[in-house]
């Protein structure tokens, strides 16, 4: 009979998973009318009045879900005792541990959700149960995040609404409420620094400064409902979702297998996880502060390759800078340098590709790109020289004209002298 407790558990939870009756959940599209909101709006206690004031903006309320849809009770009763009657299912403040089930009672019901928003997924609860938050909650830890922690309980807005706490640019602040609290995070062995580190990253910059909504925020790498840090073996997959070129290059390198054996998280080993900064060419090497030095040491094969890679990149970068300055100076002096500018762009592009190829840790592949850049730079330098020659030609032409004019002036002087001596 060991299965009876388990079975009864399932049976007991079943009603909670069934969608609420239509008496408490109205037809889609029509804002809910309930006595709950009416009475609570008139109350003085802000804890009781607050939710009622948020009802007008709340997506559930606007779609016809009354307060009773989550809290139970009778939304049509005028009398508070009848409205908040436990016999009619009134629960009052929903305990943290029951929140996922309450939300899931509608949101996991595909047939039900079809009537309201067919395009919203219905797997949130299942995912949540696999997440760190869900697992901890199941063990009785009520400090972890539940649905209401991120989505709010009242005044819930769709994630696509810019005011929602789970709008892409606002997710960081939402997670930060707990994950930035060092004291709280210490209980879980987390530093509480992760969000602060993320805020220094290129991804955060892209999201907030460049307004690129496709830039990754917490949920893009960790999952939203199934929030869990990617395992060591899956870091490469996660980053590779967007950075496919670099991931494919990495897979060609000896690092892929080596890291897997050493259980090193691929991309993270060199680029970090939260504080992902713009990578610099100067990172390549075994010296102080250089990433290859974490495993390689001076003199070994890896160090040799690193040195060659850095050399190829750095040499090209310096030559590109010099060429660019030369072309800019010529442009400022009035020369048309469009063709040279095109060559400089080609060189720049080859350099960008070279930096992707660095992930293969393959000297030949990187040098194939840098030598293309060098070829384009040679052409640009040739064009710059032609422009400089043209300028020199102009200066020489001028000097010749000056000489001619000078001779004419001298001739005039002689003529004047001759005329005036004659007059004497």
């Amino acid at each position, binding site marked *: 009979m060991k299965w009876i407790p388990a079975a009864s558990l399932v049976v007991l939870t079943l009603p909670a998973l069934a969608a609420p009756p239509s008496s408490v959940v109205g037809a889609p599209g029509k804002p809910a009318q309930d006595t709950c909101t009416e009475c609570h709006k008139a109350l003085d206690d802000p804890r009781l009045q607050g939710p009622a004031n948020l009802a007008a903006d709340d997506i559930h309320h606007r779609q016809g879900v009354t307060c009773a849809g989550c809290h139970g009770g009778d939304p049509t009763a005028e009398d508070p005792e009848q409205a908040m009657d436990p016999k009619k299912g009134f629960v009052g403040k929903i305990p943290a541990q029951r929140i996922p089930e309450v939300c899931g009672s509608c949101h996991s019901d595909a047939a039900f959700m079809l009537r309201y928003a067919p395009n919203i997924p219905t797997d949130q609860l299942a995912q949540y149960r696999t997440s760190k938050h869900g697992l901890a909650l199941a063990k009785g830890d009520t400090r972890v995040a539940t649905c209401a922690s991120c989505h709010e309980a009242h005044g819930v807005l769709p994630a696509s609404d810019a005011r929602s706490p789970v709008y892409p640019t606002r997710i960081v602040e939402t997670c930060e409420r707990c994950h930035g609290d060092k004291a709280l995070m210490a209980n879980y062995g987390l530093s509480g620094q992760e969000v602060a580190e993320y805020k220094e990253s290129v991804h955060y910059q*892209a999201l907030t400064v*460049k307004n690129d909504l496709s830039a990754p925020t917490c949920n893009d790498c960790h999952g939203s409902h199934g929030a869990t840090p990617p395992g060591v073996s899956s870091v490469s997959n996660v980053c590779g979702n967007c950075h496919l070129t670099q991931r494919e290059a990495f897979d060609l390198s000896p690092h892929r297998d080596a890291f897997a054996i050493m259980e090193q998280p691929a991309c993270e080993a060199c680029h970090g996880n939260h504080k992902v900064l713009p990578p610099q060419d100067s990172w390549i090497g075994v010296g102080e502060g250089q990433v290859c030095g974490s495993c390689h040491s001076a003199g070994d094969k890896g160090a040799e390759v690193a040195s060659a890679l850095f050399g190829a990149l750095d040499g090209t970068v310096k030559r590109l800078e010099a060429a660019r300055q030369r072309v800019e100076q010529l442009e400022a002096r009035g020369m048309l340098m469009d063709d040279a500018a095109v060559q400089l*762009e080609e060189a720049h592009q080859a350099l960008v590709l070279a930096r*992707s190829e660095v992930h293969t840790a393959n000297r030949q592949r990187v040098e194939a790109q840098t030598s293309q850049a060098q070829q384009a730079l040679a052409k640009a330098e040739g064009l710059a020289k032609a422009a400089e020659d043209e300028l020199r030609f102009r200066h020489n032409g001028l000097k010749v004209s000056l000489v*001619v004019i000078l*001779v004419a002036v001298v001739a005039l002087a002689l003529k004047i002298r001759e005329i005036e001596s004659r007059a004497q």
Partner: protein
Amino acid sequence: MAEQRKVSRKTFVNWLLGTSLGATVVAALYPVFRYVLPPEVAEAPTNRVLAGKLSELPPNSGKIFRFGAKPGILVRTPAGEVRAFSGICTHLNCTVQYRADFQHIWCACHNGHYDLQGKNIQGPPPRPLEAFKVDIVGDDIYVTRGA
């Protein structure tokens, strides 16, 4: 003798004066003559270029052309329509290309994808490619940039 020297001196001065003034006039007029003959590219580079030829652009193919110093991309869709966009990837300014296997525009640098409307559909590019106006006169494809 003194008279002769004086006369030859005067002749020399006259000759020098005439020659040097003449040379000055030539030196001044030569650039003017070269100037008034229009250069090969007869118009100031406005916003319109001849980007390519229809006969050299089969369906499901693309071609990079130049707008001054900047690249543009000319695309002939699989359906046969001709479109033109800025060829500068909106991510980090690499030059994009047409991929016949994807049947849309792609950037080699960081695997950015743009659809046939120039809209960024995958990868790091944050914005669509700027679209240009295409005019076809006979076999010639003219591309005009917005003002």
